[in-house]
């Protein structure tokens, strides 16, 4: 098998995203070297992989989501917001990479290796930085929800006397945070699901996030964008559901807390 044939066999798994790091790097180097046959095959493989979306079970998003999106898009359109959301420091990193590439151009072979390594390190560093920013934002939001005087405290007593009480803090703008300790672990194919019980008569419980407790029994459920505002909700409930989630409760609530 020729070198090219070897790479050609990696194209479909590459489009699928299943190649391990070593093979992925080798194929990317081959593509960067300008193999037009493989580039064309990759374009078509991406289309082929996208067809696997047809395997997903049928599901319909809520009307609330559409309303929320349109509200945001209309606000964007009114403010004339444009598309560039790339922070300046990324442009800085790109400029630095280019300077580095020009400087080392005297030795093409050595430079290729150096640039690849530098790019990999930079990408890893950027990814790590982005990840840490996300973690920091999340932690900050949790702390604000837990400490802001505008947050409303909601106790969720258990239905069984041997279970612990859960505590929720709900901030109208920043979200909902539910915590607890010594929570029994649901069976492997089950998880705990949060429900918002609307005030309006006859309205069905609105499904929200699902979570399994940590192995040590601690429980921290964070809902950045609850599907309904606090003033429209009369209670929070948590049930045990199949791991894939459920559009309506299929078991009696394990915890219920009234929203005052």
């Amino acid at each position, binding site marked *: 098998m020729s070198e090219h044939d070897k790479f050609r066999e990696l194209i*479909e*798994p590459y489009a*699928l*995203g*299943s*190649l*391990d790091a070593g093979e992925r790097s080798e194929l990317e180097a081959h593509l960067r070297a300008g193999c037009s046959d493989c580039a*064309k095959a990759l*374009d*078509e*493989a*991406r*289309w*082929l*992989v*996208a*067809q*696997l*979306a*047809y*395997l*997903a*079970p*049928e*599901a*319909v*998003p*809520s009307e609330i*989501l*559409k309303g*929320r*999106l*349109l509200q*945001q*898009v209309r606000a*964007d359109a009114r403010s*004339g*917001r444009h*598309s560039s*959301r*790339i922070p300046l420091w990324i442009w800085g990193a790109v400029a630095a990479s280019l300077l580095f590439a020009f400087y080392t151009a005297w030795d093409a072979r050595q430079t290729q290796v150096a640039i690849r390594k530098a790019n990999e390190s930079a990408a890893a560093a950027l990814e790590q930085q*982005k*990840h840490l920013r*996300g*973690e920091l*934002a*999340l932690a900050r*939001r949790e702390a604000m929800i837990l400490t802001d005087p505008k947050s409303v405290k909601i106790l969720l007593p258990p239905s069984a006397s041997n279970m612990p009480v859960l505590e929720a803090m709900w901030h109208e703008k920043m979200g909902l945070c539910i915590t607890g300790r010594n929570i029994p672990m649901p069976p492997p194919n089950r998880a705990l699901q949060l429900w918002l019980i609307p005030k309006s008569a006859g309205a069905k419980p609105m*499904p*929200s*996030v*699902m*979570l*399994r407790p940590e192995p040590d029994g601690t429980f*921290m459920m964070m809902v*950045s*964008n609850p*599907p309904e505002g606090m003033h429209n909700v009369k209670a929070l409930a948590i049930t045990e559901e199949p791991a*894939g*989630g459920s559009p309506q409760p299929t078991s009696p609530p394990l915890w219920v807390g009234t929203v005052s």
Partner: protein
Amino acid sequence: MFLAVLTPTDSREVSPDATLVRGLLQRDVRSFEQLYDRHSRAVYSLVLGILRQAASAEEVVQDVFLLLWRNAGRYDSSRGPFLPWLLTLARNRALDQLRLKSERQRRREDQTDELPPVPHAPDFEHNFDEKRRAERVCALMVSLQPKQKRAIELAYFEGLSHTEIAAALKEPLGTVKSWIRTGLMRLKEGLQGAS
């Protein structure tokens, strides 16, 4: 049981996706709403298939459509059809979310602005309309060995690598590589062969 779910969409319709995407460049909210109505079920079904949590899936779908609204110029209709590109974007975002959840079981607030290349549709794309292609894809996948099908699903819906799939299925790495490669080729041939 997996079912075909994508909204039937024919690229030869009077109001094709490319026209609507051009509307987004003019900040036309109505074009955005039409694109959402045409494809939100497909995107949501895929994202929910990956994340398995309705609330998380809706957050990712919201991210995807906002990215589309703010970066519509990144879609080049001359390179390929719109829906595969949108689904690739949605899958990437959902897998990002899934990987983060597996680390902390929590959601993140930041966003990556990386958009995928537009997939180039092969010549045989028009062998089927969307609905029939969905049925064909499901039928072809069901015809694979159960573990071969499972290997492809683990890669597509859970973002696992060959090594991780081999560990999950307790099969040799070489077997898993072969399953995935031949399974995808069979899918391609099945879509290519029938007209």
